[in-house]
């Protein structure tokens, strides 16, 4: 059932291209603003780049997360999904995995202009950075799906999402920035492994919380 729901999410996105395109367009615009606003020397840019990257990801993902339930809300299709004999925790997992795919895809497309526009040099090894970004994405989407589900039927849901999401993501954001900075400045893994551990703890806690509590959020 999980694979069917993920396929459904991917199929809907393939047809509408709403989530990835809105995140990509918004992310590129923010990147442009960053490039003009922080037109500093290369050393300064190198220092602040991890923070800028995760700010970009956070802002873009809040837009994408809003759209993840948007279509189902507009057509009231969500009522049909939850009326079907599917465990709601599986719905959470499908949203989590598909959201993770959408965010990773957006980052993949935006990372090259990010390095180009801000004049950044490539770190020596790509693999640790990839791992950090993947764990960060899992954390953002786990909480994001929960909060997006919370605010789905609320008035002012577009405002409610970032207001609720950003404070809850604070520990993850700090850890993401710190571990990305460690990798970006070519430090050994031991130097920033504590931050990666916090990120993993966060993903596990909020992944389990989502899996357990999503049923309560979606109850009609």
């Amino acid at each position, binding site marked *: 059932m999980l694979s069917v729901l993920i396929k459904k999410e991917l199929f809907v996105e393939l047809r509408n291209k709403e989530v990835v395109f809105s995140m990509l367009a918004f992310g590129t615009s923010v990147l442009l603003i960053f490039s003009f606003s922080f037109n500093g020397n290369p050393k300064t840019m190198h220092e602040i780049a991890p923070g800028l990257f995760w700010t970009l990801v956070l802002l873009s993902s809040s837009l994408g997360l809003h759209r993840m339930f948007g279509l189902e809300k507009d057509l009231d299709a969500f009522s049909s999904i939850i009326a079907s004999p599917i465990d709601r925790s599986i719905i959470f997992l499908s949203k989590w995995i598909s959201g993770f795919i959408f965010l990773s895809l957006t980052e993949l497309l935006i990372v090259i202009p990010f390095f180009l526009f801000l004049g950044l040099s490539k770190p020596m090894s790509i693999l640790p950075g990839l791992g950090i970004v993947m764990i960060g994405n899992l954390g953002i989407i786990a*909480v994001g799906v*929960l909060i997006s589900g*919370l*605010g789905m*039927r*609320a*008035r*002012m*849901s577009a*405002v*409610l999402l970032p*207001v*609720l999401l*950003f*404070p*809850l993501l*604070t*520990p993850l954001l*700090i*850890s993401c920035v*710190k571990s990305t900075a460690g990798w970006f400045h070519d430090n050994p893994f031991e130097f920033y492994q*504590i*931050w990666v551990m*916090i990120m993993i*703890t*966060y993903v596990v*806690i*909020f992944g389990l*919380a989502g899996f357990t*509590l999503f049923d*309560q*959020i979606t*109850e009609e």
Partner: protein
Amino acid sequence: MSRLLPDKISKILFIVTAILMSVNLYVIFAVTPMVPEQHWAQKIFYVHVPIAWTGFLSYFIVMLAGIIFLVKKDSKWDRVGLAAAELGTMFVVLVLITGPIWATPIWGKPWIWEPRLTTTLILFLTYVGYFMLRKFGGHAERVARLAAVLGILAFINVPLIFYSVKLWTPQFQLHPQVEMNQQPDGILFPFLFSMFIFTLLYILMMRIRIQILNFKHKLLTEENV
């Protein structure tokens, strides 16, 4: 007043708290010794720490009430959660005001990214969202469920926020450490006394607030019938 304090326990609690709080204020200002490096600024800690304790206790109760509400589906626990969230936020705002009042003469600036203060600020912002959700969430029954979930999420995030901020700013570990057993009796006992009185005050305020929310619920239910 008799409607807000309907039972004997609340009335006794009100009288005891009023008397003991007056004694507490007198002890803080007139009896406790001056700490040489901090002078009057130190006195705020007899208030700042107890209100921080009651604020976090209140948010813990929001989480507990949320769990019980989701299990039992009894709206009484939603009202307990709401009362605790309101009082917790009020106490946390006071923490965010009294903290910088102490910090300005001691650290030379009102705000630094100290883990306890930062955790308090982030919790406060989460609860701003909590009240927005309560206001704009839609149907009352659904809002109660959503608020319960959010109360749980907000509290399980506390250790993660505290630990990550502590590691993020190791240079800002300037907050007075809780080694109260090393304090002289002249400071320790008034401090513990103040903690006790503020907890009593919190219990009294919770009883009154829950009472008001119960009245409101009863009125709305009668109106709908």
